[in-house]
């Protein structure tokens, strides 16, 4: 048995270990006792709050507000459809790529049981369990002999296209309800997922443009990155909210089929645009770091083999560059996920906005300790899973091993 690196064969030795490490001398003994008392008091305080004095009814009565905001109950099937599709795709991808058994995923699902206990009322609990089943179904499908054998590479290509297609699919499906009604965890996740996936390609382009030898492109990219990085996100959000309508007018403006301004629908899109602009500039600098880590000889060798610019970037430079910066990228993604809570200043009801609304309800005035603790738990679960996923990807790609 090993505890924090110390060998502890049996209880007698454990006591000796404690005496040598925790109680050697009066100063260390006093320190140990003092810390135990301090930790005990803190644990008692937290435990007393969580199990005795907290009124969790503030959370349970507002389950819907926390998770989907004002999204109508009758239309919630849209969200479930998206969750099921993504869960199925996730299971399939796990089977196609991961070298690790799905036990880890199941472990993660079990870790979320406390949240589901809060959520447990009839159909929601059943539908949540169903999404786990969809994940399992996708996994089983990916593990069928044909897909894990002969057609594995084809299946992987198809899966990548499905992932890309799932984004517009999700948006269109969710958009059956006006975006102004999106809220809670749903809005937080929409802003995060779409913010990351739209900003990432722009970030790569900006990084490549900054490394370009063509002055116009380089200056544009440097200017964009430096200007955006010099402005706080909250300012960009305010500008998207106040300046866009003044510049374009309050009427609806449609860009690529998505309304970007207009009184009725556009606050979420405008916030998303602000987040994308902000994140792209930061991602560009991270990617540039990766580009600089790729030895020049790689490009020269590729050129010598007669590859064109796009092939050099796509097959030689970018894979190495991005692999080198995965930890920094995921760190940026996690911080973007938490930064989405700033849309509160636009009076959007994201997870934090929901908490603020709950502590203003006449029945739950001032119950913000409960609501903040609850959303902190949700934020942590999501951020922790993002971090785990990045470690998994690093392991699969063998970062640090080659």
């Amino acid at each position, binding site marked *: 048995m090993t505890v924090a690196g110390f060998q502890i064969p049996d209880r007698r030795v454990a006591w000796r270990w404690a005496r040598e490490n925790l109680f050697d001398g009066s100063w260390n003994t006093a320190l140990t006792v003092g810390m135990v008392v301090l930790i005990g008091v803190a644990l008692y305080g937290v435990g007393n709050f969580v199990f005795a*004095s907290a009124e969790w009814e503030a959370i349970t*009565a*507002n389950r*819907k*507000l926390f998770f989907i*905001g*004002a999204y109508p109950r009758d239309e919630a099937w849209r969200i479930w459809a998206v969750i099921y599709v993504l869960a199925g795709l996730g299971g399939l991808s796990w089977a196609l790529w991961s070298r690790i058994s799905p036990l880890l995923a199941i472990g993660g699902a079990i870790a979320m049981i406390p949240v589901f206990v809060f959520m447990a009322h009839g159909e929601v609990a059943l539908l949540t369990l169903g999404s786990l089943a969809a994940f399992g179904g996708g996994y089983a499908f990916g593990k069928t002999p044909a897909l894990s054998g002969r057609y594995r590479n084809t299946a992987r290509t198809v899966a990548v296209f499905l992932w890309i297609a799932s984004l517009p699919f999700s948006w269109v499906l969710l958009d059956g309800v006006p975006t*102004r009604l999106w809220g809670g965890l749903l809005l937080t996740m929409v802003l995060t997922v779409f913010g990351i996936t739209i900003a990432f390609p722009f970030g790569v382009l900006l990084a490549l*443009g900054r490394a*370009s*030898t*063509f002055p*116009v*492109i380089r200056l544009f990219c440097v200017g964009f990155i430096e200007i955006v990085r010099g402005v706080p996100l909250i300012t960009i959000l305010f500008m998207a*909210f*106040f300046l866009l*309508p*003044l510049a*374009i*007018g*309050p*009427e*609806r*403006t*449609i*860009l*690529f089929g998505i309304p970007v301004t207009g*009184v*009725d629908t556009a*606050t979420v899109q405008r916030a998303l645009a602000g987040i994308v602009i902000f994140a792209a500039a930061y991602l560009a600098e991270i990617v540039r770091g990766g580009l600089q880590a790729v030895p020049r000889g790689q490009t020269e060798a590729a050129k010598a083999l007669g590859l064109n*610019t796009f092939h050099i970037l796509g097959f030689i430079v970018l894979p190495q560059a991005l692999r080198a910066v995965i930890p920094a990228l995921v760190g940026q993604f996690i911080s973007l996920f938490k930064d989405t809570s700033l849309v509160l*200043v*636009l*009076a959007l*009801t994201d997870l934090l*906005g929901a908490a*603020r*609304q*709950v*502590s*203003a*309800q*006449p*029945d*739950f*005035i*001032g119950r*913000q300790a409960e609501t903040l603790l609850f959303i902190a738990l949700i934020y942590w679960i999501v951020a922790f899973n993002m971090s785990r996923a990045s470690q998994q990807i690093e392991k699969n790609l063998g970062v640090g091993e080659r």
Partner: protein
Amino acid sequence: MLKRYIIPSALWLMATIFIVIAACGGDDDADGTATPTDTGDGTGTPAQTGEGLLATVLDRGELICGVNDSVPGFGFVDPDTSENTGFDVDYCKAIALAVLGDADAVQYVPLTADARLPAVQTGQVDVLIRNTTMTVSRDAGSGLSFATTTYYDGQGLMVRAADGYTSIDDLATATICTLQGTTTELNLTDRLPDSEPLPFVDNDTLQAAFIEERCDGWTSDRSQLAARQSAYPESAGGPSALVVLDEVFSKEPLGPVTIDNDSQWFDIVNWTVIGTILAEERGVTSANVDDFIADPVNPEIARMLGVSFEGGDIFDAGLGVPPDFLQDVIRGVGNYGEIYERNITPIGLERAGTVNALWIEGGLIYSPPWR
């Protein structure tokens, strides 16, 4: 050599041009739509049909109403239905009923204190009903118009009962908790120049500090103090551990706000509010409005409800909405008293004897004649 640069830069330019074209091309209904400011000539002449916010709202079939989502009693989100609810929200419904005849034809836009006035100025909301105080600079300088006040609030001071303070002057040199960046902070310095303000960003942190006795007094709008008092935690002594002192040392008349220069729209908002007050004065409620429609016992009730009195003509005030618009309003949200009782009484603010009582009962809630 040059060729290496030309192709990527041409691609780049094409992409940029494409995006710009797409942005402009999508803007297909920008022309031909009336903007809110091109209506009326400032003399109060009703706008022609097809112009102004009335036409916009009728076309859209929905009222866009700027509200608060975190003030108990006035505007908050109901946990059961997760819908906006409260005193201010009921007035959004009243206007929607007046114009569109449907209380649910409202889009609520929650607005922060900073965002609320620009939202009216830029036309993002048709009307703002979000506990906004009427002041001369907001009315004159900001391109906004304030309709009849729906709630007369005022700044008060709350203390712990055990401390034995009886008047505001007792706290001349005390530490007083306030909210950051509000007029209450400025009013406090006017009233008690020697006191020490302790500002907080929101009421929840302020309450925590007050319980820890970091300040002797707590100043805010009296409606908010009452809401906080009624929900004061039992662990800190419950509501009876607090006293709101009698003196009110600022005036905060709260009412709907519309954009300047759209007098027709302003009149509709204004007279919808007045209609709910008159209905209370005349004893017309959501329960008995149909009886009054069948038998309007006096001429003013007949004019108000847009029905004929003893065979006479139906009175049309020329607001631009059907003369019987108040029927829907009263049936849907009730009169002023009903709206008050449904939303504000539950947070512990009694109405009798305050400025928010009807004028015939000694308050300020007063309706001009309906003729």
